[in-house]
């Protein structure tokens, strides 16, 4: 058992980005500051900087995601890296080579960076520890979402968005609403907000969608959305997947929307300048009403734009180390 966090090297520098948990406030701000320098790049005539020229980034998606994969691809290309996309369907009945065999093969093709999405919590840790052991410091792993565990670049781009609109984290009340149980975004957001010193993080949802021991993550738990939204500065809505309606977690999308969907009427309970965020893709009419999603308080498309800059920042910091 290794005592050091596998995402840090011996000097405490980032070698991989696996989770926001354990990052210092300075490190998070450093990533956000770096991202700020990249926001302008996308507006330039030549949307490229040469920071990762000659490096190969492998997008390794064991779980489908067009959106996240695309933003990583754009971020890598704007850093002048070569990008290879691999979609590996693990759910197929024919189980092919093992996860670590796949990694070894790609490392042998001189991959410099892996962007990994996997349905199992912790899979990027396994990969990072494996390349630490077999390859040393030259190969980097970025977690692009693992099971229910973490989605650190989404968490960071959410922090970037909040910093952009609200400036000071230490005066905020933030509500995270919905399916926290299955949400890696919620966990990364809660960790990001906590490390940046947000004094009140609220979580709102029915008991069936909230994990055990949530309070120990430093949040206040609400089951009544109206109560939970009162006077908040930021609302982060979570995506509710249709498959949740199949088991015994929720009776129907309609009932969910009635109690936990964000409507203009409920949004009015928050502060007048409250911003509304959503990691996408949205289910209109399930967790959010179109009037809110397209309304003046929504910053959902800003999140997407900032997301590319944040991913460029993470890749450039890792690629430099």
């Amino acid at each position, binding site marked *: 058992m290794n*005592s050091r966090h596998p995402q840090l090297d011996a000097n405490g520098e980032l070698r991989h980005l696996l989770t926001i948990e354990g990052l210092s406030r300075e490190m998070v701000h450093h990533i956000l500051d770096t991202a700020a320098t990249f926001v302008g790049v996308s507006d330039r005539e030549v949307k490229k900087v040469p920071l990762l020229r000659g490096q190969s980034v492998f997008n390794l998606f064991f779980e489908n995601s067009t959106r996240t994969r695309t933003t990583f691809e754009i971020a890598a290309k704007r850093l002048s890296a070569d990008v290879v996309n691999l979609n590996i369907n693990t759910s197929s009945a024919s189980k092919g080579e093992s996860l670590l065999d796949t990694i070894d093969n790609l490392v042998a093709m001189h991959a410099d960076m892996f962007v990994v999405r996997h349905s199992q919590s*912790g899979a990027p840790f396994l990969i990072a520890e494996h390349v630490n052991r077999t390859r040393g410091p030259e190969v980097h792993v970025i977690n692009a979402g693992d099971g229910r565990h973490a989605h650190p670049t989404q968490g960071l781009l959410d922090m970037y968005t909040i910093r952009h609109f609200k400036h000071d984290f230490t005066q905020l009340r933030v509500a995270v609403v919905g399916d926290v149980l299955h949400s890696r975004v919620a966990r990364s957001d809660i960790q990001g907000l906590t490390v940046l010193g947000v004094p009140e993080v609220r979580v709102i949802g029915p008991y069936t969608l909230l994990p*055990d021991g949530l309070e*120990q*993550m430093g949040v206040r738990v609400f089951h009544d959305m109206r109560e939970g939204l009162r006077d908040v500065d930021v609302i982060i809505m979570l995506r509710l997947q249709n498959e949740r309606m199949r088991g015994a977690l929720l009776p129907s999308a309609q009932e969910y929307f009635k109690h936990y969907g964000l409507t203009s009427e409920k949004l009015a309970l928050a502060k007048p300048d409250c911003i509304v965020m959503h990691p996408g893709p949205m289910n209109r009419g399930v967790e959010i009403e179109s009037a809110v999603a397209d309304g003046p308080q929504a910053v959902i498309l800003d999140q997407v734009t900032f997301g590319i800059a944040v991913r460029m920042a993470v890749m450039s910091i890792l690629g430099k180390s």
Partner: protein
Amino acid sequence: MKAPTRISIVNGRLVDPASERDRPGGPDSALHVAEGRIVAIGAAPDGFEAERLIDASGCVVAPGLLDLAARLREPGFEYKATLESEMRAAAAGGVVGLACPPDTDPPLDEPGLVEMLKYRARGILGTRLYPLGALTVGLRGEKITEMGQLSEAGCVGFSQAQSPVLDTQVLMRAMQYARTYGFTVWLHPQDPHLARGGVAHAGHYASRLGLPGVPVIAETVALNTIFDLVRETGCRVHLCRLSSAAGLELVRRARAEGLPVSCDVSVHHLHMIDLDIGFFDSNSRVDPPFRSQRDRDAIRAALLDGTVDAICSDHTPVDDDAKQLPFGEAEPGVTALELLLPLTLKWAEEAGVPLTRALGKLTRGGAAVLGLGDEYGRLQAGGAADLCIFDPRESWVVTPATLLSQGTHTPYLGRELQGRVRATIVEGRLVHERDPAVATEARAADRVPEVPLGAIGQRLL
């Protein structure tokens, strides 16, 4: 080479949990073995001539360990472990007898399979096997097995291993049928519906890691059902691998009520908690999962107040391919036959438990559950010569090279433990002997820096 049958063990500290005697090593602490029995303690009988003299200076001489759960993986999983490798590991761990669960492939649900297992084991000098027969055919929880014939073939009890009996009527019928012949049914109390999909203790740490949880109520709901069925059927039940404070409290009450139940815990659960998963360490993936510190403390307390009869290894060799996977996909199980004694000693040391009591949970406790007679699990003239001779102070590092088991996965990998077996005698035959002077020791490079267990998880809080 023929193993010597007349052995004298001299200068050892004799520890007998059954009589709570702890006699320091000295001139009168000799123990003499012949024809499979302890023939004398102290002076040798007239005319006794030892073929072999073992100097046990600095060592403890205790009854050999009786382990209530060790998977040998045969038949069917020979790529994980073989009878040869695991019986050698058992002997190296001081284990003289072990109960093997029926979850082989095929499961032990036919007398012929049990006879084959015993036949294979007879060719290997070592530990005695006490096979557990399958309670239902194929462990499918549908149809009861030929328990009478399985018993004649050598099964000491009937178990579902980790497979559930989803149909409570089938479970009741199985218990009624077992009751007819006085057989003990061994059950893992875990409600399969409540545990479904879970891979770690349901608590704040699993939530933080995004790992689906196995809640404590999966254990308590199952226990309440089992106790109702015991009341109804009168069947004797041995409860395997209790993991929670709440579960142990239910067992405590059931015993106070006088229900015919006994219970064991796994040795890793005396030490490990959910935080020891650290960063998704699949060496800490076990079933039932490591629970909270409060549960761990309750397990320790329940050993002392008699709620728990025995500590078992729950030895489960797993191949590397099945462990080098994301935590939730990794196969549960740890190697433990060779860790059973040192980890029990570690508990005794930390909790200030006298050696006689601690070793009682590895010897008499198991003997009682297995229904062995008074000649087993104790040091007495006339009793079975099942002995474990160990140096309680010898330090060693757990590495694949220092383990004889084919399974090498345990959260203790790379850690230093105290207490190591020098010799194991089964029914008067020396089945394992280790000379510390020539033993292969782990190189210093194999060691990992000493970090208190739980420290990694703790640091994240």
